């Protein structure tokens, strides 16, 4: 990187409010790379796929002379078909995601994971965009910046979010990042729609450690982040077991939903390193071995 580019980057970094997110995501993505997306069939591409007998109508230039010289047949060298894929990512913009028990908020970590995935996909030449119709999937650094801004502005009035299946492209890959604490009907609809369009993907449940442990005690009034829902407990400790089993139940339900749609499900807690989850994402979406 030359000095002037460096200065430019720095200047942009200072100028843009979302840059820490982008930097964090870049750091997370630095050591990883997307695998290639072979389509398991011959077509335009760099990787060798197969030799086949030349048939009438094949171009003369397609004949692999070295292979043909070994026998009496003429062989055509075919390469594997490689196309740029589309990755569509949904980061739950709801107020629930802004909850934090001291560390980074769920929204922050969700956006970081999403952006890191976007960076990796972009590096592999794939198109990246959010679900819905607002931003079309594209490649390029400008797109990353747009995404970073898009994902770092949650909607404070929305209690729980639902992914929007419209704009989902057939055959694309998708990624859902949410705490999945709201109504799961929307998620179910999305997954069905995705399955119909042979859209594969991952659903990652981002949870705060407090949401896992439920460390509350005494007389407590629980409110949803926007304050619209309220639940009063006179002895919060007695609820811990029940809460945790309800959480497990929800997770297994989500996993079942994903399995049905051919998706993968993962739980990420914001106090654990994001790198492991990132590797998992790479393995599933990027075909990393």
């Amino acid at each position: 990187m030359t000095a002037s580019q460096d200065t430019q980057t720095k200047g942009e970094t200072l100028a843009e409010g979302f840059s820490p997110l982008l930097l964090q995501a870049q750091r997370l993505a630095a050591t990883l790379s997307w695998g290639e997306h072979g389509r398991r069939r011959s077509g335009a591409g760099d990787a060798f796929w197969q030799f086949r007998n030349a048939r009438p109508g094949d171009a003369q230039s397609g004949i692999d002379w070295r292979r043909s010289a070994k026998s009496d047949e003429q062989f055509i060298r075919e390469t594997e078909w490689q196309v740029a894929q589309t990755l569509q990512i949904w980061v739950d913009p709801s107020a629930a995601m802004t909850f934090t028990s001291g560390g980074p908020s769920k929204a922050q970590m969700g956006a970081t994971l999403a952006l890191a995935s976007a960076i990796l996909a972009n590096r592999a030449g794939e198109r990246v965009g959010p679900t819905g119709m607002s931003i079309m999937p594209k490649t390029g650094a400008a797109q990353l910046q747009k995404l970073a801004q898009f994902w770092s502005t949650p909607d404070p009035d929305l209690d729980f979010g639902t992914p929007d299946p419209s704009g989902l492209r057939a055959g694309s890959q998708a990624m859902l990042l949410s705490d999945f604490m709201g109504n799961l009907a929307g998620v179910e609809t999305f997954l069905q729609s995705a399955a119909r369009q042979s859209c594969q993907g991952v659903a990652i449940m981002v949870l705060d450690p407090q949401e896992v442990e439920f460390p509350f005690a005494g007389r407590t009034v629980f409110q949803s982040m926007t304050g619209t829902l309220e639940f009063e407990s006179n002895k919060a400790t007695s609820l811990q077991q029940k809460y945790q089993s309800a959480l497990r139940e929800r997770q297994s339900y989500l996993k079942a939903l994903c399995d049905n749609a051919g998706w993968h499900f993962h739980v990420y807690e914001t106090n654990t390193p994001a790198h492991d989850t990132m590797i998992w994402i790479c393995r599933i979406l990027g075909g990393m071995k």
Partner: protein
Amino acid sequence: MIGAIGFLAPWLLLAAFALPVLWFLLRAIPPAPLIQRFPGIALLIGLKDEDAETARTPWWLLLLRISAVFLLIVGFASPVLNPNVDDKANIPLLVVMEGSWAEAPTWNVRRERAVAALQSGYRNRRKTAFINLSSGVDEEQIAFAQTTSALEAARVSEPTPWQPNYELLANIRAEGSFEVLWLASPVKYEDQSDAMVQLLANGPVKAAFFDDPIVALSDVRLDGSEIIVEASGVNLTQPSSFAVLALGDGPDGAEVVLDRQQLVLDAGASQGEIVMNLPAELRSRISRFEIESQPHAGATHLTDGSLRRPEVGLYSGAARVQEGAALLTLLHYPRQAFEGRADLVEGTLGDILQANPDALILADVAEVPNFAAIYSWVEDGGRLIRFAGPRLAAAEVDRLEADPLMPVSIRAGGRTLGGAMSWGQPKTLLPFKEGSPFFGLNLPDDIQVRAQVLAQPGPDLPNRVIAQLEDGTPLVTLRKVGLGSVALFHVTANTEWSNLPISGLFVDMLIRLTSGSQITDLANLPDTAMAQLQVRIEADGTISSVETQPGIPVQDILQGSLSAKVPPGVYDGEEITLARNVLAADQMLQPASFPDGVRFEADGTIPETPLMHYFLVGALALFVLDALATLWMSGRLRKVVRVAPILLMGLMLSNEVDAQTDDQSAIELTSEIVFGYILTGDARVDEISHAGISGLSDVLFARTSVEPVAPVGIDLATAELSFFPLIYWPITSDQTLPSDDAVARLNRYLKSGGMILFDTKDGNVAGLGQGITDEGRKLQEIAQRLELPRLEPIPEDHVLTRSFYLLQDFPGRHYGSRVWVEASPVGQQSSTTGFRNLNDGVSPVVIGGNDWAAAWAMDSLGRPMFPIGQGFQGERQRELAARFGVNLVMYVLTGNYKSDQVHVSDILERMGQ
């Protein structure tokens, strides 16, 4: 009344009826819940609590709160244990406190007794009144009333350092008989008994608290060189010993105990005295005497000027004598004579007069400068002592008209005895006559007068001669002028004309002439003389200085009895300083006596005890418990418990005291020359400092006879600085400022001849237009608190430029920034030789920014640690830096020695002649 407990405000107890209502109210309101934002709420909805009982306040918490409120109600109802039930409830009650100094030690107990009696009276619906007989000039009528006004007056009453005024009892307006509770002073006063007799006529009188032991100082006087302190005591149950302290200003101005003696007094009423034998120097500093652990005004005795040492001004007509000729100066012997006995003031006559000395010595001054000022000073009581001399003898003064500042007129020329050209033998002295201030002094027989000035004969002459030679000619004459006097020694103040100044007699004569400077003859004071209170003795024996006060006629101070108008203390008038103490010189304490008919308070009665505060504290404790319980219930107690140990730990963290420099290291530091450097806390800078001073030490070792050992890092917080002749102080922008204690030690070090080389290490950037650097600012912060002299850049002729090498620049690693030293005194810019001839002390600081340590620094193999400049020129600069170091060390170790050497050429020239 419930059993032994009574209430002052029983109607408040009605509030207790409201408690059941409170019970229901509190029960209906559950403790406030904790509000928690939680996205997982979706999972909670539909879950059920196991038990819902905490929605209501638990009964035990309710009980706790109700008890707390109950305690509050009872507490504010002012419960009293064993309330005094007085059977004579129908007649009014008068509580009398004498309020004198003798009651001060037990005042709180007395006041509580008075308050208790008045409270009890009020509770029993008696009319009450209260009077403090010392409370100043209260002209108001004191009326009995069935209110708490007397109670409130008693609560705020205070003792005074004077005696009670029994006439105030006349202000009491009474109808019919009344009962009196007399809280008596343990010390007898003149009208005490009569006053009680008068009160007895109106009703019963009960006396309490009359037998406290009291010891007071009655007189302090000077007998020769001994101070005799008299004290008397009353009501002592057994022979006791008391410590009497003489207090005065210490060398640093703070009050210190100058002497402590044990005073032993017999039981009962007794008198005793102690003798303090103090050197004159200490004696003159005493400002007061005090009996230890007797907190009342009688135990404090202020001294006026009688023990004070005089202030003597010295002035000589002769020109300043060169150094080394001290024994020849005219003032040497008077100065020696007063050494330790008086505060000496020297300088110009104007300066001396400004100090308003008690005496002024003029040695051989013919034409007195500031004549008018001196004359008015003498008229106001100053003692002028003049010495003759060649100048006075030769002066062209009008011999006929008497000089008002001379006791006699002098004949021109004087005479010489026993010399080669004279007829007579040296003369000795005649014994002093009665009436002479010298009367009674021993006359050594070896005193010889070889020359003198003679007085013009006249009718007044015999009266004015106070010492004469064997031939009757005057040796010392004295004349009173106004309130003061003028004395003349007809010989010189040095040994030129006589050997009188080297005799012990000379000392005694001067003391006699000056010690009586204070006017002690108080009877002669004009009636209009006024004095102002300067220092006041409080009732508890403490001393407080007072704001400007109106003057009080001296006669009142001397003769009037002590009162609010004339409180005990030190008064300052125009001519006098008076100390008025609580006891007069001949006064002796007497135990209080009571007329027949006075009842004494029985021992058997249980004093009533107010219980209010116990109930309130109990209620507070319950409320604290309640707060903790509430926290616990809402699950927040754990947080408090978690924080508490941290807070406790913070409190318990004690300052670890670093080990002081022990004797062993002190011996090591002083047996060799050791240079020090200040540890800045920056490891790199400290390393460079060490290497730099080591490098300089090597250079010194190789080139000079200074052979320093390895330098020592100095931690300013703890180290003793005085072992180091030179301290190198590199300034870093982030070093911590020295503590107050460290600053004090630094100042002591600088004053006692130490030197600090400040190095801001910013010579490369300082003064390049950016203004002051961070290091420079730090240096300013440090230097502000040090007592540094005025500074100037090293002038060309400074000793530093030639103390070993001849230098004009003082480079270090940087070159050319200015180096500052103590400014030379004004008017001593340079002498004819072109060199400074007065640079006596060594500058306590050298300040610069050339980063010398880096230039001197060498590694373990003796190679320079840092590059300087470029090529040969850089090496030259390093050499100059080393030379500056050598010069600096030479300057530190030899002072202005090299400055003197510049006169060698002159001296050689003179010797050649």
